């Protein structure tokens, strides 16, 4: 939109990836004189806000400088050799697919840092918290910015250690077991993924994603493609997570601190689906076509399974944990994303990318809200919260209740909000899948997915009824604070973007569509 010289753009992208790492190292050092603040804790938390804020500003500048007329072209590219022996190049670049994810990641990290500044989760020193958060940010941003398979793997692995410590040190009950489950599951997935990446890289002679995309799998035999899709898909599916590989997610979300849950749902899960779109679709189209019906089937089952699990948790007397419920709803939502990808059509993939962003915004918001609710009530157990009639947030904390109701309604896919477009496009994609894919099978998935949206609406409305409505005079006498200023500041951007993306989907689709068209056409569009 504004003209920024290519070298500045290049610098901005490299800065976005590297600066959090430097910030992380700086967080461990004592604060310099003049920046000591009121206490060392306050100083380091402020440092976190500053660094993530600068990164967000750089990401916004990058978005403004991005040539929106050519979103299918990689921009702000850097390409230098790093490890010749392994043929690893530091190849960075963004196109219409990665830019929205990059921007959303930077935004969510800034909001999380802001939220933690006022509301630090209970645990050991904030110094380590900020340092880990920044390493996590670097890893996630790098995942979306790199264009080399082995660098992608490196970035993919980089998030494991910080996330493990965030859950294990700052989490709630059962945090050790949940953290172990998270890291061992994802590591097993990603090591298997590495085998697939090596298979692709060795057989086609390059680890460069751009070259691989334009080769479009011509260099790879069918068997190689099958093996590669199987192993890479397995690693990505664990991360996404795809049913039935999701079992680490509910525990991790339930145990993680609020900020950890927000980032896990908002950013980390997207790394899985992004990998499907960025690597598997263009580099191994034949293998993908073979496995697409299975992927679609798992996605459809995941949609219904997630919704049913949520329904069960939302019912009275089941002692459902709200955080766990939203985690299961993520399994359902990511099912739509996978269904869109499995259709292998521009419509479906665009829908998947849209649903990715929408899920990041809405579920991020939901986890913020539920985390705040848990802080206020001391529990996220739905039965305890609701009591006999309901938690009556509308009566006790009207603005809080309104936010929660908004997030729930957005999550169920109300037209006019972000959640709608992605899921609708994904279903459209399944209605008319790519040539060579079994139409009846995908029609079935579409029907199952559509049924899933009904179930989704059902459990979210039950949650709204049980949490927001009720008799404020019944139940325990508890003064519930309404939304604080910092909460308002952290949550409003998410609300605004949800409305924006819902009312003006073209702002996102205009970016992703050309890039997706090129991707599916083998870089020759």
């Amino acid at each position, binding site marked *: 939109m504004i003209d920024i010289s290519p070298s500045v753009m290049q610098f901005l992208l490299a800065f976005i990836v590297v600066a959090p790492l430097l910030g992380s190292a700086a967080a461990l050092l004592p604060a310099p004189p003049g920046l000591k603040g009121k206490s060392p804790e306050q100083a380091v938390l402020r440092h976190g806000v500053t660094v993530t804020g600068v990164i967000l500003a750089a990401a916004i500048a990058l978005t403004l400088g991005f040539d929106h007329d050519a979103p299918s072209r990689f921009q702000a590219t850097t390409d230098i050799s*790093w*490890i*010749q*022996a*392994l043929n*690893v190049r530091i190849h960075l670049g963004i196109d219409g697919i990665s830019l929205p994810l990059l921007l959303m990641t930077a935004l969510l990290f800034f909001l999380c840092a802001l939220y933690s500044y006022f509301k630090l989760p209970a645990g*050991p020193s904030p110094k*380590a918290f900020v340092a880990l958060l920044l*390493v996590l940010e670097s*890893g996630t941003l790098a995942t979306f910015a790199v264009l080399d398979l*082995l660098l992608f*793997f*490196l970035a993919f*692995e*980089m998030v*494991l*250690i910080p996330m*493990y*410590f965030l859950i*294990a*040190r700052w989490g709630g009950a059962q945090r050790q077991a949940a953290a*172990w489950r998270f*890291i*061992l599951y994802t*590591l*097993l997935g990603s*090591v*298997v993924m*590495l*085998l697939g990446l*090596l*298979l692709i890289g*060795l057989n086609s002679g390059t680890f460069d994603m751009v070259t691989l995309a334009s080769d479009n799998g011509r260099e790879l035999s069918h068997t190689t493609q099958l*093996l590669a899709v199987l192993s890479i898909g397995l690693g990505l599916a664990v991360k996404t997570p795809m049913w039935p590989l999701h079992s680490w997610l509910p525990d991790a979300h339930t145990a993680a601190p609020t900020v950890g849950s927000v980032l896990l749902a908002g950013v980390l899960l997207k790394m899985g689906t992004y990998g499907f779109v960025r690597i598997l679709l263009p580099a191994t189209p034949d293998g993908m076509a073979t496995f697409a019906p299975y992927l679609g089937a798992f996605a459809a089952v995941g949609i219904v399974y997630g919704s049913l699990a949520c329904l069960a948790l939302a019912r009275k007397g089941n002692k459902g944990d709200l955080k766990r419920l939203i985690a299961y709803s993520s399994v359902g939502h990511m099912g739509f994303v996978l269904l869109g990808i499995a259709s292998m059509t521009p419509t479906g993939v665009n829908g998947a990318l849209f649903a990715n962003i929408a899920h990041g915004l809405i579920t991020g918001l939901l986890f913020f809200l539920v985390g705040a609710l848990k802080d206020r009530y001391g529990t996220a157990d739905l039965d305890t919260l609701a009591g006999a009639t309901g938690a009556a947030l509308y009566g006790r904390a009207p603005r809080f209740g309104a936010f929660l109701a908004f997030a729930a309604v957005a999550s169920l896919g109300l037209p006019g909000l972000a959640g709608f477009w992605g899921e609708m496009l994904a279903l459209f994609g399944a209605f008319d899948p790519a040539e060579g894919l079994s139409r009846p099978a995908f029609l079935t998935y579409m029907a199952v997915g559509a049924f899933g949206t009904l179930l989704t609406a059902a459990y979210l409305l039950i949650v709204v009824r049980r949490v927001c409505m009720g008799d404020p005079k019944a139940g325990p006498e508890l003064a519930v604070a309404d939304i604080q200023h910092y909460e308002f500041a952290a949550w409003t951007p998410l609300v605004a973007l949800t409305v924006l993306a819902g009312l003006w989907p073209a702002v996102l689709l205009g970016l992703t569509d050309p890039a997706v068209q090129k991707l599916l056409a083998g870089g020759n569009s």
Partner: protein
Amino acid sequence: MTAMTALTALSAEAPSLVQSVDWLAIAPVVITAAVGLVVLVADLFLAERHKPVLGWISVAGLAAATATLLPLRAGDRTTFCLTGDPAACSYVADRFTLAIQFLVLAGALVTALVSVTAVRDTRMPAGEYWFLLLSSAAGAALLPASRDLATLIVALEVASLPAFALVGMRRGNRLSSEAALKFFLSSVTATAVSLMGVSFVYATTGSLHLTQVADRLEDVPGQFDTLAMAGVALTLVGFAFKTAAVPFHFWVPDTYVGAPLPIAGYLSVIGKAVGFTGLILVTVIAFPAYSDIWGPALAVLAALTMTLGNAAAVRQSADRPNSAVRLLAWSSVGQAGYLLVPIAAAAYSDRDQIGSTVAYALMYAAVNLGAFSVAALVARTKPLHRISDYRGLYAERPLAALSLAFFLLCLAGLPPGIIGLFAKVTVFRSAVDAGLGWLAVVMAINVVIALYYYLRWTALLFRTPEGAQTRTRAPWPVTAAVVLTAITAVVLSGAPEIILRVTTGSLFAQ
């Protein structure tokens, strides 16, 4: 007249019987051995209070020996060649030799730094200790350069025999003598089996030079085929033992626990280097003709080794005495499994795959010696070597804790231990490249198992400490060892190319 021409022809044909020796090429080995002898003799004339000087002479000698590797980088050198066949040489200083010699000598240098305080504190006999360490290092440095079976076995024994004595060095410690005896008996048996294998190979080929053996094994007469095959298999046993590959691994935990800590670190790195270097030389240089035998055997051995090592390491409980050393011992067995993968892969594709073993070994040497150095530091205040002693190390010694965390994550192969990650990637690559998919999958599962115990230990470092902190000043040689290894690991993480370049091109001169 005819007699005259015949005589001149003869003298032209028969070259001089005196070999010329390339002293520069053999300098790294000779210096190490010579300094060892100097230390032994000097020990006789030094008063008790001057004994620490011996340690510093050894450190300086090892540093000098490492430095002599620099001029050798210019090109491949050979010496002790057959006068009749100049291509058959007993000593070759090619890229492979230099990489391993660097590993051995730099590793011995770090061991020596850690030992300076250990020798003083535990009152081990200084002269003997340093002499034995240097002799063993000289043998280990000779091994990668030796290109005939006799030199190979001699180097193997020169490296091992002093190690037995070093293991039993802790005076009055029953565990130590028992460990030494166990190590000695099992090792000698393995070497004897190896020697028998060598004799079989010699019987079938009539040569000890690896390149000639390789040529002649190509067409072994039918009736000798079984003999040659048995020779190949038996020769591998001795080296597999030194690598601590399953089923020759059982000596490792007890030996490491009984040995002085620096020696345990030495065995885990240099001892292993001796084993896999020998394995590489006999397999890819001498026995390529029988790759269909040793390839699958090594692949299975690799899978078993990593699985058993990691499974045993996971089972170490944190509160038992010596659990930290036991864990490092079992994890080194697991790591030996990864080291074997590219050698097995070399059987299926080409011999340059072993570059991945060398790269992995260089990474492993730096971080494992680092971990042992930190263990030596911690053992000064908490001599029980329990993993639970490491709880809250960050509060007590932040830099040591951060270094250990980094070493452990490198061993696990997870960022921020980038060099560990890429070293693993090269090993995986060799397996995938050779079509050993099943082995790659077994290794993938093992990487996950290993992460569990490495990360459990890492997490412990950052917990809030229990009880009072007893911070004493760290002796500077140990600190230097930790800093040296930590800097190496960090620099390598930023520029993995430094060691990963051994994976490109051929490492061997011939």
